[in-house]
């Protein structure tokens, strides 16, 4: 088991009264598996993802339960040990590829940044070589040129590919994808989904795929978690959930998918 989330919860303390954002979430993720989390906005799915990536703010917030990555609790690890995992074992890509890259830094340097931090034994030439091969792996045409480009010179789809290349550069065990295709065109969406599936097969990386889009979740996931209002509603194999949902909320969600009758 790569990741185990036990009774995880978050309580915000930035207003007069504490607010529960996530409560009693338990699930696990095996190495090489693709786990989908589906839910409306405010369901707590992105907060759960950020918590696993160690990116929750440190103040004004109480974390409960445990998130074990390879047996270590990510929630209570000291910052230095957490940073060892971030970018090396646990990587994340985000919803907005337009703003997730630094506008004043060349793509190449951003792709190889994780190597700079985690693989100090590599020299500049070795890092460049690895970055170029990652850019080629995400099917970007002309990696050499992309390497020298700035983010504004690339399209949204290309930038999300760059984000994936930057995440995969250190050979992580877990890739967290938080609504990675929401900001993209439908055709580009399909390409990115295919790419994630290919990377999952080839690199044996586990993927936590978060989306509000049920058809995407069905297409990519092996197993699915359904979340609502910060709680886990239902979890199971993808076909089981989609064909035989147990909970009313899941049924409602499924019935909301528009169907095209042919």
């Amino acid at each position, binding site marked *: 088991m790569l990741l185990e989330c036990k009774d995880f919860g978050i309580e915000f303390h930035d207003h007069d009264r504490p607010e529960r954002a996530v409560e009693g979430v338990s699930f696990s993720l095996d190495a090489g598996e693709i786990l989908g989390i589906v839910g409306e906005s405010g369901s707590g799915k992105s907060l759960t993802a950020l918590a696993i990536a160690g990116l929750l703010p440190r103040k004004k917030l109480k974390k409960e339960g445990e998130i074990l990555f390879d047996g270590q609790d990510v929630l209570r690890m000291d910052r230095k040990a957490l940073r060892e995992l971030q970018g090396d074992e646990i990587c994340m890509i985000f919803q907005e590829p337009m703003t997730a890259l630094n*506008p004043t830094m060349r793509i190449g340097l951003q792709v190889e940044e994780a190597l700079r*931090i985690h693989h100090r034994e590599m020299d500049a030439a070795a890092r460049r070589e690895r970055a170029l091969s990652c850019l080629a792996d995400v099917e970007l045409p002309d990696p050499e040129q992309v390497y020298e480009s700035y983010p504004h010179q690339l399209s949204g789809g290309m930038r999300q590919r760059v984000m994936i290349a930057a995440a995969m550069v250190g050979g992580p065990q877990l890739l967290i994808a938080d609504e990675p295709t929401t900001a993209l065109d439908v055709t580009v969406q399909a390409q990115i989904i295919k790419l994630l599936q290919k990377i999952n097969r080839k690199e044996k990386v586990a993927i936590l795929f978060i989306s509000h889009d049920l058809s995407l979740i069905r297409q990519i996931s092996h197993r699915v978690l359904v979340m609502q209002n910060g709680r886990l509603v239902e979890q199971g194999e993808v076909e089981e959930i989609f064909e035989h949902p147990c909970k009313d909320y899941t049924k409602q969600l499924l019935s909301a998918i528009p169907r095209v009758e042919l």
Partner: protein
Amino acid sequence: MKVYLRKAISMLLTLLAVSFIVFAAFEIIPGDAASSRLGSNATQASVEALRHEMGLDRPFLLRYFSWLGGCFRGNLGTSYSYHMPVAGMILEKIPITVTLTILSMLLTMAVSVPLALLSAKYANSRLDRAVYAGNQFLMAVPSFFLGILMTWVFGMVLRWFKPGGYVSYKKDFGAFLGYLILPSVAIAIPKCAMSVKLLRSAILSEANRDYVRTAYSRGLSTMEVLYRHVLKNALMPLITFWGMAVADMIAGSIVVEQVFNIPGLGRILLTSIANRDYPVVEAVILLIAAVVLLMNLLVDLLYRRIDPRLRAE
């Protein structure tokens, strides 16, 4: 290339306009070089005679264009009060003011950037609040007052230097630099306070950007995130301010030069205005205007250097 040609032409036109305005200003304010040289006891007839001798009785436009023609031939004219070629006089003063400006700017940069980074890293901490309070105070205190204060503390109480003991750069460059340290501190302090304030708030607003979260997700420490990612993006408003600050130091160190008894451009500008010595005033003002224009150009170039999106056109 065409852009730079256009910029060069517009700079030249600006300088022409500035020179005309200065000339016109001397027409409007009472008194001229002849009356100020002869003093208040001179008779009307002797002033008129001198005015004729100096060519001041010619029509305004004629005088302006003959001066302008001289400029294009590389002759900035002769000072009325010092009877020396203006170009030589100014050239001699330039190293003094330029050194003072460079020292002040280096101090401003070296102190403000680390202080702003610290202040932003520990935002709302005790350190940050102390820096904020200090900044508010120092921004409000004018340079010349700081100069007077420092002369009193370091010159008269502690006796670290001799007040008014300016040494010419031609005589002893080391001693010259040493004497300029305190004046440049006095000039730098308010600029430094402003820089810290600008950079701190730019860093804090940049810190909420998505790419910062991406950087953290790669395992960078806060300091690495600030130095490698945030600083470059947060530098833009500061560079604009620094460009203005350099122009301001060249032109506006007059009072500090006066307080520390430094014979720089500021001093010569003040005495020349008092003497209605317009060839000198024209030259100094044109020099200041040229520095302002050049700084704007430099800021423009730096913007392009930092932000690749501006390089697109």
